[in-house]
């Protein structure tokens, strides 16, 4: 009996010491995973996930503090990519964080704009130009469609407009065989 206890205790002490040393020796600093997650996120910086931008959300995912299905702009495809990267199971977009919408840009109704600069301060990517008491306008190419400029506007002059399909953005559709009704046979 004593021998058994001694043997087990000896084993425990030795292994514990080895592990303790290894933990100190192979300490991990930084987390390169965050960058990889961040690269998948759509960078709209909209905050719909509940974090203050895409990077903080990526950090939360890496730490396991957030689910991968909280990013509506990334859509199902983004979730699939995250699931693949992290080896987690796919989950459909969580409804409380919003729904996937077609990509849009903000348009300022320049007649109604009073030049309050509130939207300029709200834009996370500096895509709105203008100055106090001057008309503001959105640089459409840089707009991520995050909708963060909508709530601060005191005169509700900003609207979201889905991006129209152009020759540059047109895509070949998934091939589907067209089923035509059979010609009616003479009775």
């Amino acid at each position: 009996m004593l021998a058994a206890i001694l043997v087990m205790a000896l084993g425990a002490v030795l292994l514990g010491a080895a592990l303790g040393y290894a933990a100190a020796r192979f300490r991990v600093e930084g987390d390169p995973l965050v960058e990889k997650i961040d690269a998948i996120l759509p960078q709209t910086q909209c905050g719909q996930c509940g974090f203050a931008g895409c990077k903080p959300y990526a950090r939360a995912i890496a730490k396991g503090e957030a689910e991968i299905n909280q990013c509506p702009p990334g859509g199902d495809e983004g979730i699939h990519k995250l699931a693949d990267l992290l080896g987690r199971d796919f989950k459909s977009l969580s409804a409380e964080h919003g729904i996937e919408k077609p990509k849009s840009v903000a348009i300022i109704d320049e007649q109604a704009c009073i030049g309050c600069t509130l939207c300029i301060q709200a834009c996370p990517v500096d895509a709105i130009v203008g100055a106090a008491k001057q008309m503001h306008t959105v640089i459409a190419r840089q707009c991520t469609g995050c909708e963060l400029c909508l709530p601060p506007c005191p005169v509700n002059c900003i609207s979201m407009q889905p991006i129209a399909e152009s020759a540059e953005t047109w895509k070949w559709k998934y091939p589907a065989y067209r089923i035509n009704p059979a010609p009616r046979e003479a009775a």
Partner: protein
Amino acid sequence: MTVLQRLFSFNGGVKPAYNKEASTGLPIAMAPMPAQLVIPLHQSIGGTPRPLVAAGEYVLKGQRIGGADGDVSSAVHASTSGTVVAVEMRLMPHTSGLSARCVVIQPDGREEWIPRQPFDYRGATPEQTRDYLRDAGVVGLGGAVFPSYLKINPGKSGKLDTLVLNGAECEPFITCDDVLMRERAASILKGALIMREMLGAARVLIGIEDNKPQAIAAMEAAARAANEEAGHPAMQVVAVPTRYPAGGAKQLIRVLTGIEVPHGKRSTDYGVQCFNVATAYAIYEAIALGQPLISRIVTVAGNVARARNYEVLFGTPMRDLVDLCDPRPDSDRVIMGGPMMGLLMPADSVPVVKAANCVLVGSPKLFPAPPPEMPCIRCGECAKACPADLQPFELYWFSRARIFGKAQEYHLFDCIECGCCAYVCPSHIPLVDYYRFAKSEIWARETQKEAADVARERYEFRLLREERDKQEKAAKLAARTVAARATAAAALAAAEKPVITAADVAKKALITAALERARAQKAGVRQENTGNLTPGQQAEIAAIEARRAEIREMAKPHLRQDD
């Protein structure tokens, strides 16, 4: 003159019914002037040219109406003289059925040219010549419409070995290059000579499929004459076996030179550059005649009674061309290009553009709807037929399952969309449609990713800027507080001075006495290291002491304020 040329071969390929005879019977005719010309600004690969004219302006034939925009772009010109009616969105000749910005010209019927001057390319630098060709709107007329000025560049070595002229014209129904070679062989070769000089190419190989004996004869005669004139047998016409797609640039280069251009490389890396014969003709017109590219030869064929080749001004509606050839009543569609690679047009009102080598009229009888797509049986016929040496079935599975990364691993982007795989597929799978779908999805994702990267950069810069602003503000605030305290203290001191009570005097006396005592004590204890000093050192010490006193004086108001 036909030197025995060792020919090579490419793998795969198919032999569809050629149907070329119908349109080669008659010589090229000039298509009549339409009531209105609709000239799309975007007619070549690359950036959309900016419009240079506005509605109401009068333009001359050959006047530039769209200026090249960006590194890859090519100018667009008025096809005839007349008045610009509008610059607006019109249906463009593309399967999408989308509209693009077009310049609409009402012809005045006078065909008044801009002043035409031959361009002295020998006296100009290569850059000037390239700029000239860009502004003359010369693009590859084989169908890919890649700006030619970018291709007339010998590459890193500065010298090419072979210039290949592509007269293979392998796609069924199309004969525009065939008749062009028959009728204008000498001009084509003049254009080829210009290109040869610019590229520094040692020889010119003209590859023509052996089902065009008349074109081969005409080109050989012209080549003989040109070689005699130059006193150097640089030009060589080579009949290549008829097999689709022998007219693909990479395939023709391989047949003529044996060089297989690998994935991710350019043919110029191997000393070869390839141009279509019609492009050579356009270059001749641009440089020797000073005429920009405003028209091209278009084959009108398919379900028409009188198929023929026409020289057509860009902007002419395809319907006008089709009507010239008596379309049969059951015609139901217009295809731009051939039956293998052509694009279905959304309507027959779309204009002829630089890419339109053929206007193919279709009918349910001529091009019956494909049978239903059946499951892939993994027979491997498509891999045997693929002229790009790809594995079409792998590309198909991955494109179909939307696993685009894997499709790219299998070199989806080396696919030339020639349609051989779909042609041989026993299950009637529209393979090319899947590849086109996968390619455009991948492009869309790439643009999305680029946009995301820009957004990330801008967001991070904004965070940085906000942080910097915050710090600057804090620093400024701190400086201001210090200054404000100093002035406030000074004011306080000034205000306090006159009011001195007896208690104050007593307190001050006490303090002074204490300070006096301390000083006496300090003086008593002589500091060791201050003995026997030089006068210079003493002066230094005195200066430091003076500064200290000054600082103490400055600090006094604060001490006062704090207690």
